[in-house]
């Protein structure tokens, strides 16, 4: 390792330690590197052992991913990986630093290169060349000097610290400028080179600031667009005014344990703007507006759900307490929406509720849009709502929808939301739940009852095997809530066949999707139990398994190595010199300088035929087999060749002595 390499490594590691606040790791690595430089110890590391170091890095990456995604889910798992890259790739660096080769086979980092068939290697054009700084020559990069790439990797990793100041930019440009300086070609003019670097730094300084501004702009623009996809407690986008057919998903959203079917409320909206419903009080507060003391006896249900970083919970009316989400930060709105902020994970939580939604109505709860006044008045007259008690009005409206309307997934062909609602009431008399809920809210308001549109889920599909209610995406529902006798009561006027109709539209793949969802559910539940009860035990088992695996790899590598050495030793004798120890050569040697000597242009076979010695005929065949058959001779045949050749030679010498 040269001094400038040490400089690059020290600079990058110290910068990483400083920005990421990983001082112990940075100093530890640096100490080992410096020790490597000044120590005389070097090992003869074989390719396989290099590969094992690469495997160790890969294993560390996998373990880290398991930890951040499964064992201890964190908010930014990918950045945890980025942050620890220098530690994860340290085995490969140390393999190079402490090896006598002082370079790293590229296959250590790229598994695909290990399996490359040497016969196929010629199919590709040769790799680009690498300038080797020490020897001053260019060679093919089957091996690399990993020091500078490692330094670059460390600086990349320091980016995870997210220090939003020019500091990171200065560090990164300084390191890369240093590296580029060491590899610049001989014909490069230094002033021009410096000018290029200064230009690059200048352009990229303004470039990265521009990129950041662009990102902010794009983010702002996309928020509005993306928000239409999610359940938003501030704004509800209905499908009123959409055309075509409503597409429903069979995806299982969550499961719950409850005493019976019920409606789970996610959000309420009090302002009607045609296509959209808005919530006037949309500010989230840390305090739950529903107090247990205010509302009588509590009921309980349990929800099992995969929660995202920010999830709007679906809860029964009058939820006063939630347990099981201790690590979550819960926020509430006055209109009853509850948002949980937590690390994405599978959660099992309990909701305690009174089934009585309280809260005073506002002036918005009685607002009737002018464009709908005519038909509202017409229907109200038809139903004779004027002067009736609120309970009667609710019943009349529900009965009107139940008897005169149909549930339909067909969205119609009217693109204007206001006209679509009018069509629904006066002509088509068929629609999905959002039409029923919106029309009910407006009719109630027309009759003088404060009303809001609520959305959430209708729980009704019970799974006997799991003893749980299953809530799918298609169970998402909208209904009206009316303020009667100091309480908000649910008024679900959608004809009751809607669930059955939507079930009929279920996908053919639903059983398969359900099976997979159940598998995931059971795994996550098991994982949840483990993390609660045996977190420490699990880590211990993982560590134990890792130790066993590493010990096994070490043992098998040793075995392979010794086998390889044996093979190598035998190979040294076999392939290039196979059969050179044949005793047949002794016969040839013994007959030299006699009239029976083998001629230069004579093959052994011809020679034996010329000698007319039948006992040699068998011997020369054995000799050929020993020399040229890749399988060689069996032990018995080898013994036979040895004995008979020696016996023949002995006999020949005796004969010669006698004459």
């Amino acid at each position, binding site marked *: 390792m040269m001094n400038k390499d040490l400089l690059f490594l020290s600079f990058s590691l110290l910068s990483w330690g400083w920005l990421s606040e990983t001082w112990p790791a940075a100093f530890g690595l640096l100490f080992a590197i410096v020790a490597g430089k000044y120590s005389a110890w070097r090992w003869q590391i074989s390719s396989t052992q290099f590969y094992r170091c690469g495997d160790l890095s890969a294993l560390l990456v996998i373990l880290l991913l398991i930890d951040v995604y499964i064992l201890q889910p964190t908010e930014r798992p990918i950045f945890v990986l980025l942050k620890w890259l220098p530690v994860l790739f340290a085995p490969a660096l140390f393999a190079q630093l402490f090896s006598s080769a002082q370079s790293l086979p590229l296959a250590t980092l790229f598994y695909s290169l290990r399996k490359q068939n040497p016969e196929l290697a010629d199919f590709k054009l040769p790799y*680009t060349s690498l300038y080797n700084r020490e020897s001053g020559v260019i060679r093919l*990069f089957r091996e690399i000097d990993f020091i500078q790439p490692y330094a670059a990797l460390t600086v*990349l990793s320091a980016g995870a610290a997210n220090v939003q100041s020019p500091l990171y*930019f200065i560090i990164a440009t300084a390191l890369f400028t240093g590296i580029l300086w060491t590899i*610049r070609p001989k014909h490069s003019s230094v002033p021009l080179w410096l000018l290029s670097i200064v230009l690059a730094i200048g352009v990229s300084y303004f470039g990265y600031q521009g*990129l950041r501004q662009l990102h902010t702009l794009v983010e702002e623009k996309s928020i509005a667009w993306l928000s239409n996809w999610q359940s938003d407690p501030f704004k509800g986008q209905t499908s009123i005014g959409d055309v075509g057919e409503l597409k429903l998903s069979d995806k299982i959203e969550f499961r719950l344990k409850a005493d019976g079917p019920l409606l789970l409320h996610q959000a309420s909206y009090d302002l009607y703007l045609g296509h959209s419903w808005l919530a006037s009080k949309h500010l989230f507060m840390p305090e739950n507006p529903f107090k247990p003391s205010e509302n009588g006896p509590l009921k309980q249900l349990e929800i099992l759900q995969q929660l995202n970083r920010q999830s709007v919970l679906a809860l029964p009316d009058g939820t006063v307490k939630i347990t099981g989400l201790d690590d979550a930060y819960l926020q509430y709105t006055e209109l009853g929406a509850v948002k949980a902020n937590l690390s994405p994970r599978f959660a099992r939580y309990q909701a305690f509720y009174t089934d009585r939604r309280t809260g005073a109505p506002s002036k918005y709860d009685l607002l009737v849009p002018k464009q709908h006044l005519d038909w509202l008045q017409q229907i109200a007259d038809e139903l004779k709502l004027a002067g009736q008690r609120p309970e009667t009005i609710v019943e009349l409206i529900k009965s009107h929808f139940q008897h005169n309307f149909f549930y339909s997934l067909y969205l119609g062909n009217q693109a204007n939301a206001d006209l679509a609602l009018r069509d629904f009431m006066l002509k088509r008399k068929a629609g999905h739940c959002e039409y029923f809920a919106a029309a009910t809210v407006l009719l109630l308001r027309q009759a003088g009852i404060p009303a809001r549109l609520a959305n959430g889920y209708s729980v009704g599909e019970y799974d006997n095997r799991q003893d749980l209610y299953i809530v799918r995406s298609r169970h998402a529902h909208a209904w009206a809530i009316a303020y009667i006798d100091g309480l908000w009561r649910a008024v679900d006027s959608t004809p009751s066949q809607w669930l059955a109709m939507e079930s009929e539209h279920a996908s053919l793949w639903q059983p398969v999707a359900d099976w997979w969802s159940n598998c995931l559910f059971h795994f996550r539940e098991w994982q949840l139990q483990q993390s609660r009860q045996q977190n420490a035990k699990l880590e211990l088992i993982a560590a134990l398994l890792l130790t066993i695996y590493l010990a096994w790899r070490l043992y098998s590598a040793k075995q392979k190595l010794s086998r390889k050495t044996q093979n190598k030793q035998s190979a040294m004798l076999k392939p290039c010199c196979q059969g050179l120890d044949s005793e047949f050569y002794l016969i040839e040697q013994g007959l030299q300088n006699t009239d029976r000597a083998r001629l230069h242009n004579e093959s052994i076979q011809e020679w034996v035929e010329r000698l007319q010695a039948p006992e040699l005929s068998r011997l020369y065949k054995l000799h050929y087999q020993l020399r040229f058959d890749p399988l060689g001779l069996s032990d018995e045949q080898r013994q036979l060749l040895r004995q008979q050749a020696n016996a023949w030679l002995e006999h020949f010498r005796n004969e010669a002595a006698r004459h």
Partner: protein
Amino acid sequence: MLQSFLLRQYRRVYRFDNWMRRHFTFTGHLVIAFTIAAAVFGVNTKQSTTYQLFVFLLVLLVLSILNSSFNRLKVTLNRRLPRYGMVGEPLRYTVTLTNLTPRTYGRLALCEQLAEIQPSATQLLKFYQLHQSPWFKQVVNFRRWLRYLAYQRGGVIAETALPDFAQAPLQVQISFTPTRRGTITFTDSYLAKPDLLGLFRRLIVLKARQSCLILPKHYPIKPLTLAGKRKYQAGGVSLANSVGNSSEFMSLRDYQRGDPLNSIHWKSFAKHGKLIVKEYQDEYFVRRALLLDTFAGDAATEQFEAAVSVAASIAVNERQNEALLDLMFVGLQTYCFTAGRGVDQLPHLQEILAAVQPGEQDSFAQLRQAVLARIGLCSSLVCVLMHWDQVRQDFIKQLLSHDLPVAVFLLHDGSLGEQQCANKPEHFYLLDYRRLAEQLAAL
């Protein structure tokens, strides 16, 4: 349709891959890798700062590419190729580069290239013998496409690093191992010059299109001891391969009816006023025929190559001064080339063998006719076959009935045993094409 679409994509991927490999230095590749990594981790500029590194590296790459457009280096190239190369043996040649500018350049590399012809779907089907396969198996994957390209290219010449390149002419020794026989074409070479920053390389094209003939691989083989008689060769040695009489003059005699006109000695006619003809020496010598069956049929390409190698090995080991050798095979027509003392050099046969292509139709009947037409001239016959069917067995039987010594080399893929081959002649050698060297050595 699908196949041609795939081939187009293969070509694009291969071209892009080559472009990247040739144009970027190792550091350039690393910078690209880090640019991509920085972009992936920095896609959200509020969660990490690697986007700053991404911008810097991207600007460096762009500057490098722009830098490379300025070039003052001018070079000439002169390549000295040997006349022949041989499959599997390193082919060494010299390239002389001359720098026409006064500057010294470092870290240059010479990229020699062999011509590549992008295969068509039909060529691939033929090469991999997929005509009979179901349609889904006829789809050639990228790996096979590359393999064909490599086979057709005939070898890989590694990039050669040049020492500092000043004004003095620079001689570079290059060697590579040809992987197929036939003509290998060297296309334009490139001199790769890294840019100012050392990330991107400008490729300076050096026009030097040349070709070299690669002879088939041959193996040491014991000379065959076929007990053939010397045969009368009308026309003697020098014209043994052409029509007419020998040029070795013996005597003059009076004209007899039926004598050819071109044997009349016109000077004597002018002197004596009667027709006198020249008489030439009758020649008797050994003439051996080497017959190569070019019909590959279902056999693998390697098996056919092995058959050519066997023929080449026999031709090389022929004693040049003792006999003539007729090489006979069927290509577009039936060919017969004669080599030996006074006729042609035996290495010329190697050149011919380097160009032999497998036949698509079984043209053995044609070859048989050609052999039977010359049977009177031949002392012995060596057949290199790839099939042992009834037609070939009958042919060998017919040759033996003429009391002609025949040796048969039958190439197979390891599926044949001696017992399975009926009607074997005395000299019958069964050769597994994958163990050719050892089996020929053990003959």
